[in-house]
Structures are given as structure tokens and as C-alpha cells.
């Protein structure tokens, strides 16, 4: 149930992002989803890819500051209130969400949401009990 997300430190400097994407391309890493948290001086690039371990070692060998973060992914119906149901479940159990980002599955009427929560185990249980479908890591990596 735990998905490995790449978290990469990116200084706000011309060309930094393209160096990262170039490294990923050179190593045949396919990006499934991404988001960037930005501040004045730097950003944190968060990526879900098909092969996190290979991407990690490729970026590390380029001297980049990168780590793997445990996140969870849920599948919600792509209809009004679809996300609300899942967020409500967590809120009722007082589980805070650090950050989240979503992407659509082009083949089905489903949206996928990546979530970084304070306690993965509790969140997985709460979501499962609340009838929310959690995605398996193979399912995400092989999209």
C-alpha cells in the first residue's frame, strides 16, 4: 500500500529542472505524477515514477539531494464529492495531510490522489474502513 515517492531538492536556478528531467530520461524513468512545493529560494520536486530505486541512484550519482518518501495513493471516482469523501474520513480520525496531489486516469472515470499523511498505517486503516480504495504500488508504477 506504501508508494515510494522521489523527493528532490531543487535550487531556484536556471536549468536545474531540466538537468533532473534529462537524468530521468537518460535512465528510461517514466514519470507517473509530479508536484512541486516552491519557496523563494528553492523547491521540492515530488515525483511518482515507474522505477523509484533506479531513479534514486541515477539522481544521486549526479550529486543531487534526493530521498524516497513513503506516501499512499487512493483511487476516487471522478465525480463531484469523490475526493471529499476520502478527505472527510481522514479528518474525522484527526489524521492530518501534509500535502497531496492528484492525476486522472485517462482510461477510467477515476482520479488518483497521492497523499503524504502524518501516520501511514492509521491513514490506511481509516481509508479502508471508510470504503476508499487504496492503490497498490505495482498498480501505480505500471500505469
Amino acid at each position: 500500500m506504501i508508494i515510494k515517492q522521489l523527493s528532490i531538492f531543487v535550487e531556484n536556478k536556471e536549468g536545474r529542472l531540466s538537468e533532473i528531467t534529462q537524468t530521468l530520461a537518460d535512465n528510461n524513468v517514466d514519470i507517473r505524477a509530479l508536484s512541486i512545493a516552491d519557496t523563494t529560494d528553492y523547491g521540492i520536486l515530488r515525483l511518482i515514477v515507474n522505477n523509484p530505486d533506479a531513479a534514486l541512484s541515477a539522481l544521486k550519482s549526479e550529486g543531487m539531494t534526493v530521498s524516497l518518501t513513503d506516501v499512499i495513493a487512493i483511487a476516487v471516482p471522478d465525480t463531484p464529492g469523490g475526493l471529499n469523501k476520502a478527505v472527510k474520513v481522514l479528518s474525522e480520525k484527526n489524521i492530518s495531510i501534509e500535502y497531496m496531489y492528484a492525476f486522472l486516469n485517462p482510461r477510467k472515470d477515476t482520479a488518483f490522489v497521492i497523499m503524504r499523511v502524518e501516520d501511514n498505517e492509521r491513514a490506511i486503516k481509516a481509508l479502508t474502513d471508510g470504503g476508499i480504495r487504496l492503490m497498490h504500488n505495482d498498480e501505480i508504477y505500471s500505469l
Partner: protein
Amino acid sequence: MENHYFQPEVECADRESLRALQSQRLREMIKRCYEKVPFYRKKLDEAGIKPEDIKSVDDIKRLPFTTKNDLRDNYPYGLFAVPREELIRIHASSGTTGNPTVVGYTRHDVDVWADGAARALAAAGCTTSDFVHVSYGYGLFTGGLGLHYGAEKLGAAVIPVSSGNTQRQVQILKDFGSNFLCCTPSYAAYIGETCRDMGVDTKEIALRGGIFGAEAWSEGMRENIEKLLNINAYDIYGLSEIAGPGVSYECPEKNGLHVCEDYFYPEIINPETGEVLPDGEYGELVFTCIGKEALPLIRYRTRDICALNHEKCACGRTLVRMAKPRGRTDDMLVIRGVNVFPSQIEFVLTGMGLEPNYVLVVDRAHNLDTLEVKVEMTPEMFSDSVKNIEAVERRMAAKLHTVLNISAKVTLVEPKSIARSEGKAQRIIDNRKI
């Protein structure tokens, strides 16, 4: 660690005979300055001092000071006390502000200087069977040739690598079996990092010690270098106006630098009033070159801030110790009226377990000075959450504030993005237009 001395008869001399030697050399020096250097004759005449008035080192406080400006005003050779045929070497310091300062040496002076550097090497445990790897720059800068002559005088074998080409430095350290490394502390740290990046295990190379100078550095920087290179790291102090590296040096106690006071007589003064300060009080370090011929400077103001300690050292040396200088007043930044030394930032970073790779950016916004400290991100500091990274920045800023007494903005930058130095590190970018 076993104590090694190069010249125990001087390094461990009893204070009384040392003092007699100093007084005799001072008398001869003042006489020579009065006779040979018109600048000093004029200065002494103006002060109403005749050479015969100076009888012992007790009288030194009556003598006028010499400053870096005096050297610049008499550029290049105006303060030399010997004719050209007696000179065998010229060095110069970089002239970032105005003319460089030019210094000259007779054969005797080069020998005196080599004694200082040889004493430093011996104190660090270097013997005649060791290889001394000199990565200071060779040239007008005194670092390279200073340690080179010192190592030869000691009888060790010199590997004169000079600075630069850091991967090659590592290759030579490894293949040639260098036992002692001599360079600036910032370059030593860079060589250590390069060893790590090249996968060279420093436990498997022959390096035992290092002598690092030409920059002020902190105890944290010492620990960092000792860990990176798996050696004992010693400070060496000097300035070209007085001789070069070897004016003072650390012993295995690592608790102050022994001054070669048989050649260079030290005093600490209040930089405002010129008054001589007692042992333990911090002030400006002043040297009188009682043992030199070509450039015998009287009470030269070094702009270095430190304190003296005349107690006998546990290593057996009786030579006075000077505290590790906090930095030269030239390196000092005045930000919002507060004195800031780069070594203070180094102290904070190494205290947090970080490598001291940083740059200070000073600017002025709305008539107020701003200080930004750029620090490289490490895997330990990194987090996927902005909140956590900001917490690290805030913690660092709080520590800097405690040490510096002014607030600084901390900016985390990518690893290896701060330029490494092969000589004296450039730590300051001052964008203020005043």
C-alpha cells in the same frame, strides 16, 4: 603522542636566557634600523629616541608602531635595511586594496624563516624519514616556499605539488605515500572531500598529520579535517611582512601557537590606544623582527586579534603561546555596526555537524545592512516537506544570531554549488555600495 623538537635549545630554553638573547637582538636591530633605514631614523628622531635608549625588551613599548600603510608608502623596497647584493629572495602579498606589500630576505632571513617552519613540522611529529606534501601555492605567496624550505631544513623529503588539480593531489597523496600535508585549512577540507568522492579510504593512506595556515579556522574545522583525512591537524601562523608561515606553530597540545620569539618578539596591544595588554587579554598582535636583516620591522601591527600566554606548555616548550587568531581585522565585516568574522559562521556550522562550506552575502536594503549565509543542503537536512526544511533554516539562523549578535538569513543551496578553494577561501560577497 611523543614530543619532537627541531631546536630544543631554543624551543625549551629557560625564559631568562631567552630574554637576554631577545634584548641583545633588539639593541642590535634598533641600531641597524636607525643607521640603514631613513624611514626609521626619522620616526625615532621624531619620537626623541636614540638607539642607545633601547637597552632591553622592557623598552620596546617606547618604540613607535609600523603599519601596513608604511610598507605601502615605501613601496616596493623603501624599508629594506640591506643593499641589493645581500638579498636572495622577494615575496609579496596580494594587493587587494592598493599596492601589494613587498618583502625581501637575505640568506640569513630565509634560514630564520626555515627554522620556524621546521619547528612547526617537527612539533607536528614530522621526522627526517617523512614525505611532506606541500599544496600551498608556490610563487610570490609565502606558503609554498615557506613550508618547502622548512621541510628541507628538517631533513624530510618535500613533494612540491603546489595548489590546484585536486584529483591529482589525492592521487599523489595515495601513490607517493605523503605523510604530512601542508595547505590552507579550506583546501585541506576540499582534498578530504575529494578523497571521499573518489572512494579513497583515508585509513589506508600514509598521511599522519597536516599543517594548515594562511586563514583563521575554528576547532570545528579542525575536527572536520581530522575526520575527513584521518590525521592530526595543526595550525601554523605567519605573515609575509614578518617572515611567512612558521612565525608561530601548534604543538601536540593544540592549545595555542608557540611563537618563534627568538626571532619575532610579540606583544598584544589595545588597537585603539596602543597600550600593551597583559597575558590573557585579547588585542591586536604586534611583532618586532629582532632576528631579521632585510626587513627588520619595528612593532608591526598585524591586524590579527589574539592573546598571549607565557606559561610553560605541557609539551615542554617555553616559547610564549598565542591563541588561535580569531581572524585578521581585514577579514572582519562590520554589519550594522557589529564585527563579524567568517570563522564565527564556521564555528556555528561545524557545531551543527555540518561541513563548513558557506558564503556570506552582505547587502544593503533601505539603508540597513543585510546578511545572508548560503549553506549547502545535506542529505541529513533534507526532507520532502518545506516545513521541516524551514525548521532547519530557522534553527541555523537562531544559532547564528546567538554567536554573531545580528540576525542572518539562511539560504540552503545545492550540494557542491559553493566553489571550493585551492588557496585562501573566498567566503564573502559584499554588495554594499557605500
